[in-house]
């Protein structure tokens, strides 16, 4: 089942102006992505963790999500140090582990975790509907936002429909294996899902037409910044300046 485990909460971060959170998360992520010096990257990881702490999220759930993502990073650790050109640190049989490769992996790990953690702390801490409206307010096209919200609305309905189809296959002795029969069954389940989705889309379109839809999208949500928001903005801007300083002015 699809869930949004971080969206609801009562921390300061949950209550911040969503537009601010999106802007800051974006700026921060890009700065981290473009940084290369370890002081900056370590600082970023710490700051991300700090924000996770401030958002008072379920640490266990957040850790589980991060474990999944770090699986991919593990792949880089297995391959890059062995394939990268550079000075050898030590040898594994015919292969040599290079210093440059190890450093690169370390950078990737730090960046990746810092960026995803800030994403969890700032973006996953709002419901998708709020995210959509805030993105709309920030100037993304209404059609795209409408599409995002509609997709989100029906992901749940369609997921349930799919679960029911799987159940139907299951009670008739279906067991997934590597055979053409299994693939055919999955293709049929998906095909049926698409056919039903298409019929539903037709009905939803009718429902929209019945309520006078003429292609314009409205966003009811108004966002307003409070004094807390200004304080947080100042805090976040200083974080960003700090990171920029660490990366590009070589203070440390």
């Amino acid at each position, binding site marked *: 089942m699809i869930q*949004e485990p971080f969206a609801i909460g009562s921390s300061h971060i949950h209550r911040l102006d969503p537009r601010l959170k999106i802007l800051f998360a*974006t700026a921060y992520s*890009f700065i981290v*992505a473009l940084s290369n010096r370890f002081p900056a990257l370590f600082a970023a990881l710490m700051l991300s963790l700090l924000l996770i702490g401030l958002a008072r999220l379920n640490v266990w759930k957040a850790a589980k*999500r*991060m474990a*999944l*993502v770090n699986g*991919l*990073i593990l792949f880089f650790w297995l*391959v*890059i140090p062995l*394939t*990268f*050109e550079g000075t050898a640190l030590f040898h594994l049989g015919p292969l040599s582990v290079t210093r440059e*490769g190890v450093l690169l992996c370390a950078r*990737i*790990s730090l960046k*990746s975790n810092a*960026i*995803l953690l800030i*994403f969890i702390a700032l973006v996953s801490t709002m419901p*998708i509907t709020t*995210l959509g409206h805030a993105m709309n307010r920030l100037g993304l*096209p209404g*059609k*795209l936002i*409408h*599409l*995002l919200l*509609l*997709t*989100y*609305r*029906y*992901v749940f*309905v*369609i997921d349930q429909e*799919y679960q029911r189809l799987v159940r139907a296959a299951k009670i008739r002795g279906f067991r*997934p294996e*590597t055979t*053409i029969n*299994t*693939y*055919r069954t999955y*293709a*049929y389940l*998906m*095909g049926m*899902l*698409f*056919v039903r989705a*298409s019929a*539903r*889309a*037709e009905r*939803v*379109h009718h429902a*929209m037409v019945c309520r006078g*839809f003429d292609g314009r999208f409205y966003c009811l949500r108004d966002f307003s910044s409070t004094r807390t928001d200004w304080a947080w903005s100042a805090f976040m801007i200083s974080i960003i300046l700090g990171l920029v300083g660490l990366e590009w002015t070589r203070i440390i």
Partner: protein
Amino acid sequence: MHISEGVLSGPVLVSGIVLAAAGTAIGLKNLDYDRIPQIGILSASFFVASLIHVPIGVSSVHLILNGFVGLILGWGAFPAILVALTLQAVLFQFGGITALGVNTVIMASPAVLCYFLFGRLIIKKPSVALPAAFAAGALSVFLAGILLGLALVFTEKDFFKVSTIVVMAHLPVMAVEGVITALCVGFLKRVQPSMLPGYLRS
């Protein structure tokens, strides 16, 4: 299939964003507002379908289906895939903000290409349509792998070996995607051919 955050260089990230924005703009421009429910609900279905794990040998892969998305939605694949990736990021933290553009391009541009290459063939008789659908499913995964590899190599030329491994790893997935796409198109041809592109025109 996507690239983690924190791997790619600035120029690659920015090119990804520019190309993804262009593709999405074309997709949205072609999108008549009458068809928004169609694209939205189908993209919800693709989202759900891409969570399906199918067994392959002792392991299992989750489907990508970008070829199929392309065949059904054409340029609409860009906004649909962008939306799906955004949802994946927010719901599962599979990605963040910086690589969203690149990942959209990696998945959606092969989808659109397959639409132009094979879209007209899949409404023909099954002996033409099914191989075309297989090709669309397999090729779109292969091309996505190549684009992913290119993104890595443009970031750092020493990523070449990693890229090769990534592309190789996608070979079995290609076969599965090809078979599933062909069977799915076969299903639609029999049950609801009007969902296939160009059906009404022919």
